[in-house]
């Protein structure tokens, strides 16, 4: 009913190409996360959907209707802003019903919706307060309330949790997720935090320099990264991307084969898939260790390359030690050196 479709969207400001060739569909009732580093165009994409910006070319459909040239109010959307965008001089209640008043919804209906939303968000006792008298989490709830009372099925969120502390962020993202599922909202959620994206999303669109890098479920992005960018962006700590040299090629000759000593691909291997082995593998120098409780991260040097190893529990490795690390062929990804694209065939020579 309220799926969102972007077709061939591009956006430029002067000579700056902010977005190019954006195509995706967000299914009705699902939560789509736009993920990427700052400046990748994720917020711009959201603002295009909201109608706060107009695309240079391409069309946007919401609920099967072309809304490319409609103002925000006619798009049947609600939006939660990064800094909440609460009106500082209005009470919580006034803030929540602001849009309803603007749209001349009858008073009775306003009251009912306000009551329901306040109960849902646990704001019932705070309705008379001003935003300045609320904590960050409560302000966030008010912003959510404003988008709930609109009773539209599409909700856009622009980094809604970035101003909250870590613990609260975790609570709020669960709350947002359960709210989205309960109200069956179609939600587009912008964040630069891959943990947030992985935990909350039905589908993730990873963006980089104004292009879609990969569109898929969190599992797909983690297990089948399409590019080295996806590999190194998803997962914490990020994937190690290694330039294969003779030592590596020799040590892993059973799984790697290249035309010469410097094959045109890079090796992606996740820190958690690296193991300390007795005899096989490559020898690296331990630079530092970080004990995190459940895991230990070991930062290593291999020639001029950095490698991070994540081990369960506490590791005995200390800075200065030499350790031998290895990995299994099924955990290894190969990415093309120039395009960054993943090569699907790893065992056999990918360049016949």
């Amino acid at each position: 009913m309220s799926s969102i479709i972007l077709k061939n969207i591009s956006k430029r400001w002067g000579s700056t190409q902010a977005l190019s060739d954006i195509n995706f569909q967000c299914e009705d009732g699902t939560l789509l996360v736009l993920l990427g580093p700052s400046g990748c165009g994720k917020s711009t994409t959201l603002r295009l959907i909201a109608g706060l910006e107009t695309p240079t070319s391409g069309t946007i459909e919401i609920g099967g209707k072309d809304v490319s040239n409609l103002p925000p109010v006619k798009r049947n959307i609600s939006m939660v802003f990064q800094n909440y965008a609460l009106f500082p001089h209005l009470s919580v209640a006034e803030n929540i019903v602001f849009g309803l008043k603007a749209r001349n919804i009858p008073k009775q209906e306003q009251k009912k919706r306000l009551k329901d939303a306040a109960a849902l968000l646990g704001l019932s006792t705070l309705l008379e307060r001003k935003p300045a008298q609320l904590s960050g989490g409560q302000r966030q709830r008010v912003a959510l309330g404003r988008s709930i009372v609109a009773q539209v099925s599409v909700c856009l969120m622009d980094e809604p949790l970035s101003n909250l502390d870590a613990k609260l962020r975790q609570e709020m993202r669960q709350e947002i997720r359960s709210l989205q599922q309960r109200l069956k909202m179609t939600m587009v959620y912008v964040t630069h935090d891959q943990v947030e994206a992985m935990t909350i999303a039905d589908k993730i669109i990873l963006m980089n320099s104004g292009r879609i890098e990969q569109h898929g479920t969190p599992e797909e992005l983690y297990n089948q990264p399409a590019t080295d960018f996806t590999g190194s962006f998803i997962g914490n700590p990020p994937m190690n991307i290694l330039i294969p040299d003779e030592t590596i090629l020799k040590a892993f000759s059973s799984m790697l084969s290249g035309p010469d000593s410097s094959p045109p691909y890079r090796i992606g291997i996740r820190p958690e898939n690296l193991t300390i082995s007795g005899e096989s593998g490559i020898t690296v120098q331990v630079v530092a260790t970080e004990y995190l409780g459940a895991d230990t991260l070991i930062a290593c040097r291999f020639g001029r390359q950095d490698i991070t190893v994540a081990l369960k529990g506490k590791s005995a490795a200390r800075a200065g030690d030499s350790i031998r690390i290895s990995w299994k062929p099924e955990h290894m990804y190969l990415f093309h050196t120039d395009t960054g694209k993943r090569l699907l065939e790893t065992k056999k020579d990918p360049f016949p």
Partner: protein
Amino acid sequence: MKQIFKLTYWNHVNGWLLVLPAVFMISLFTHFPIGSSMIHSLFSMETATRPSTFIGLENYAFLMDDDIFWKVLKNNLVYSLCTVPLSISIALGMALLINGKIKGRSLVRMAFFTPTVLPMIAVANIWLFFYTPEYGLFDQIFAFFGGGSHNWLGNPDTALFCLIVMVIWKESGFFMVFYLAALQQMSPELREAGTVEGSGRWYYFRRVTFPLLMPTTLFVTVNAVVNSFKLVDHLVIMTKGGPDNASSLLLYYIYENAFSFWDTSYAATLTVVLVTILAIITIIQFAVVEKRIHYQ
């Protein structure tokens, strides 16, 4: 216990020492002159032959019967009631206009602010030319449409009105700067939230922009009111309060009494009245408006 007493004691002393220079300056240039005027207003005028003597409220009694005082006071009220609301609303309108995205924005900004930058004497002279009969700007425009000659500043019916127009022209640009600064401080996210929530231009202005501008409005209003009671320089250049005191204002009347007629006692009396009026207006403004203002 003793230790704590000592500490707080020295804290107080320190505090007072820190504000002392400011208190001294304010007392010297604000409080002392007010007090001195009050005392001075209770004495008779000093002449070469008669020294000043205490006459109680005689000056105030004279003031009550002074037709010119009442006329000047009425002029000043008309002048304030016209210039204050008009210059403020024009300032707000201009600020809203140039806060948006329009072509040649910096040029317009500069144009709006120019009257404020000009020296007051220059402004008065420019407008003196505008109002000149026969070949002044306004009469030339009227002549173009077949109108006759007007002695704008020489006619008791139009002199005050002429002053009002000029002052609005000059003040608006100045107040606009404050509004513009306040508008630029507002987060664009609020406007966007308003747009998404479906509020139109007018609704958003009424519900959000205007209330959030209230601290600025209060500040500007107090300034505008105070300014409207202390206009002297333009009057000196343009009308000298005439004709027949038709364009004279309170402060100019004080100036005349003090430095043309050398009746400093009566000037002190008028000053006390002026200060009282301003104090009352300002207290009312703060007491009434302050409560409804949201400060961020």
